[in-house]
């Protein structure tokens, strides 16, 4: 009987609660701007300050965004949903309650397909997604007092709750990446984890493999990057397994992840003591979504990344890897698709985007929407390669020039004299003279050292300043060397 390692003995069970700040222009229940950054307490009004007598009015765009996510996750969108009050005291919560949704959220049961490290797919259930208002920000590190900034108070949030279907830190990170990608494609959240517009809490427990009941769970908060989500979850899984292996119990509690220390420590111990006294908000009638509106939103849904990957592989014949990279960001796929409209050489286009365009954009930290080389010009550059006017290597030089030169690539090639030498007669003369100048190397080649071919190619490229057509050079070299042996 083989003894199982503790990590094999236990199965982690993880559910994620993701808060996505919605990219509406105004707050969810008042007309204050959601603009960021702004001086503290400048985007506020009596409504989001909770003055006596104010009432909430629901932002239509926030509802539309929620419906979009519901459609994207194949969820049941509830055409009638209820807003509820979650009651608790905190200085950054002006009304003493948060308007949220409880028993009947706008988005019900759905699912999200993720790709695991080994390339296999897995479906993670999504329990619900509900609309709510964000609280303000408490700032504790300025002297003795706590300062409160209420600019964020009332910013719309969509809380997306997964089933406890996730089994590792890596799966959690993959779920979060996929979800973020969808939010970006829907253009409803900017997905910035560092700035907190996308936040993630994890509920974690472990149980013996084969066990169907859940173990005692803990909640881990404050993980503000994908890497930290993975690390924090793996840390907590290991901590819980250690406890159980030592015969101790997991205590239900909330832990705060400390990225610098790489550990999670308890935030408060009496999780059960929280009683939010939810009840339907009497200031907001039930949210009714008409069939017409729902169908209209459905008909205007953008193509989502999973579908794009399918299309890029099937229609454009791209490898799945390329399709994955090109669909990672909406702007990359937008850029690729626009360029693909001007050239049929999709693989060459993909190569150039993956190696050159994305590299430069990442280095300069700029968006492809403002990239110096417009998709159409890039497509022309691709066509110069495929038609044999320039080599792939020269193309990189032309690309570099194009970054600061608005001319068309043909013009640059002409101006800089970068056209490929494909003329066999001209190349034959050059090759013959090189072979004559290097009899020792020719002898080596003829003695069977075929590797030395590269030396001759290098010499040709040196003499032609890289402009020689590599294919022509190769075939000429082979036939001329063969001739010298005979």
């Amino acid at each position, binding site marked *: 009987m083989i003894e199982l390692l503790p990590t094999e003995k236990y199965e982690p069970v993880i559910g994620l609660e993701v808060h996505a700040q919605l990219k509406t222009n105004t707050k969810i229940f008042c007309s204050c701007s959601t603009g960021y950054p702004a001086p503290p307490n400048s985007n506020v009004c009596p409504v989001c300050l909770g*003055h*006596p*007598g104010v009432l909430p009015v629901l932002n239509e765009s926030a509802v539309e965004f929620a419906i979009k996510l519901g459609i994207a996750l194949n969820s049941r969108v509830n055409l009638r949903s209820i807003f509820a009050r979650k009651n608790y*005291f905190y200085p950054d919560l002006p009304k*003493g309650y948060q308007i949220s949704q409880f028993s009947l959220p706008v988005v019900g049961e759905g699912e999200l397909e993720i790709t695991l490290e080994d390339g296999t797919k897995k479906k993670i259930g999504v329990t619900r997604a509900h609309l709510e208002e964000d609280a303000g920000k408490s700032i504790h590190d300025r002297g003795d007092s706590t300062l409160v900034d209420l600019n964020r108070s009332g910013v719309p949030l969509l809380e997306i709750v997964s089933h406890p279907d996730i089994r590792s830190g890596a799966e959690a990170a993959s779920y979060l990446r996929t979800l973020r990608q969808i939010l970006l494609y829907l253009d409803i959240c900017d997905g910035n984890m560092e700035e907190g517009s996308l936040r993630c809490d994890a509920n974690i427990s472990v149980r013996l493999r084969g066990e169907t009941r859940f173990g005692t769970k803990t909640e881990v908060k404050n993980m503000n990057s994908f890497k930290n989500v993975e690390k924090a979850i793996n840390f907590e899984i290991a901590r819980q397994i250690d406890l159980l292996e030592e015969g101790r119990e997991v205590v239900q509690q909330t832990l705060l992840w400390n990225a610098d220390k790489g550990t999670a420590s308890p935030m408060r111990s009496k999780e059960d003591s929280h009683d939010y006294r939810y009840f339907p908000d009497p200031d907001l*009638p039930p949210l009714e979504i008409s069939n017409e509106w729902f169908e209209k939103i459905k008909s205007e849904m953008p193509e989502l990344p999973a579908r794009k990957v399918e299309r890029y592989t099937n229609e454009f014949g791209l490898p799945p890897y390329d399709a994955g990279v090109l669909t990672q960001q909406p702007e990359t796929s937008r850029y690729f698709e626009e360029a693909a409209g001007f050239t049929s050489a999709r693989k060459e286009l993909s190569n150039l985007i993956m190696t050159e365009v994305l590299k430069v954009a990442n280095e300069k930290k700029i968006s492809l929407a403002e990239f110096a080389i417009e998709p159409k010009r890039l497509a022309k550059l691709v066509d110069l390669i495929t038609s044999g006017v320039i080599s792939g290597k020269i193309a990189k030089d032309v690309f570099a020039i194009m970054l600061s030169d608005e001319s068309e690539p043909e013009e640059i090639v002409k101006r800089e004299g970068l056209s490929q030498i494909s003329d066999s007669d001209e190349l034959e003369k050059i090759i013959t003279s090189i072979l004559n100048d290097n009899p020792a190397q020719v002898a080596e080649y003829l003695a069977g050292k075929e590797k030395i071919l590269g030396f001759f190619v290098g010499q040709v490229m040196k003499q032609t300043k890289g402009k020689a057509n590599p294919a022509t050079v190769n075939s000429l070299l082979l036939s001329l060397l063969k001739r010298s042996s005979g």
Partner: protein
Amino acid sequence: MQKAEVLLSSLKGGKAPGRLFGAVIAVKDVISVVGMPLTCASKMLEGFQPVFNATIIDKLLSDDALIIGKLNCDEFAMGATNTNSAFGAVLNPVDKSRVPGGSSGGSAAAVAAGLCDVAIGSDTGGSIRQPAAFCGVYGIKPTYSRVSRYGLTAFASSFDSIGPLANSVDDCALVLDVISGYDPLDSTSYGGKLPSLSPISPFVQNEFTYSFNPDEHPNLAQDTNTPVSDEQPNSAQDTNTPVSDEQPITIQSPADTKDISKKLKIALPKEYFGEGLNPEIKSAVEEIASKLVEAGHIVEEVSLPNTKYAIAAYYVLTTAEAASNLSRYDGVRYGKRSKINGTLSEEKNRAVSEEKSGTLAEMYINTRSENLGKEVKRRIMLGNYVLSGGYYEAYFGKAQKVRRLIKNDFTKIFKDYDLILTPVTPEFPAKFGEMPTDPLAVYLGDIYTTSVNLAGLPAVSVPIGCSSQNLPLAAQFIGKEFEENTLLSVAKMLESLLQ
């Protein structure tokens, strides 16, 4: 006076006068008016200056009303005596040894004393109608959602209605007409078209139609005074035909056809005339019923069987909403903030929350303990209790069900009747010093008014004379949703009948 001069000069400038030109209006101090403190009669908000006008204030001002000031009330509109004010009690102008009623006690007293033409009040469970009855003035609680609540400090959001109190039906009608209507700032305000309320004619003309169809109710009385077509000469039935199998008592007399164009069917719910009702009030209301019969209307006894649960449901639901609505008075952003002196016991400190620092917990506790009144605190505690984990279904959930039952009771009655006639209060206003000390006994005084708020219906309190002790007598008419015109027409008819 300055405002009056501004109004006058604008008139000279050729501007047409608004419908309330020069009307002197005072406002219950739970409604936001820029330039006047908003205290809600609470120490918590003493000195608080609101930064926006309630929607109804903007409407009154744009029709050229003169808003002369704020009126005392029970703290956060919680009470029925106007003795729960941080700034002292209001005296009843009719008899200064008695309470004016509440919570809009200041509003009723100001109108009765002639300090203003119209006072604005708010009614969550009778807070307009009961003080109107105690001070002998008209007060109307409109259909829930008819008048925007934006700028009304919330007590119980699904109950609160703003309405006018005045010495005449016409003044009530005109002001209600001005403040009615959809408000984009209040998602619960009614978006449909509302019939005009002004001028109100004393007799109901064409503003409403009978909701019953004789074909669907073959046993129902067909109104013999309604023109019957020649084709169906025999279809007219005896007006005494009972509505249901239970034979109700019917007070009936032949209609005086020359005075009315339409005959009203008025219901007297027997649950509103039972034990606990002062006999003098009972007979005064019954007298009104007889007068209506004499005027050609039909008055029949009916049953609203779930009335007995109204008070309990009302106090569960309103305190729950209030507990949440009043959480914002925490000393953080505005209003009073109490000193922190580090004297909070550790136990109390922990009770607030695990995640809050000691000083924060103490700030909350001290601020709310020192600045909220006893009745307000009682209701906050009650409300938090009925919403708390494990009790929600037993209290809040059940009370919501009762609310639906009560609404259904009314819906059933209004299939066959146009109006319901009841007393407003079971008793006359208490003398200061003779008020019941048991809060439950005080709550029972709301027995005839709370059902109306549970059902969201309109109701009017109409003065109907004086008691043997020279105290005001009043009757309540409850109407169908948005049929305030019917209520006001009847009130106007009585106004002339009783003169």
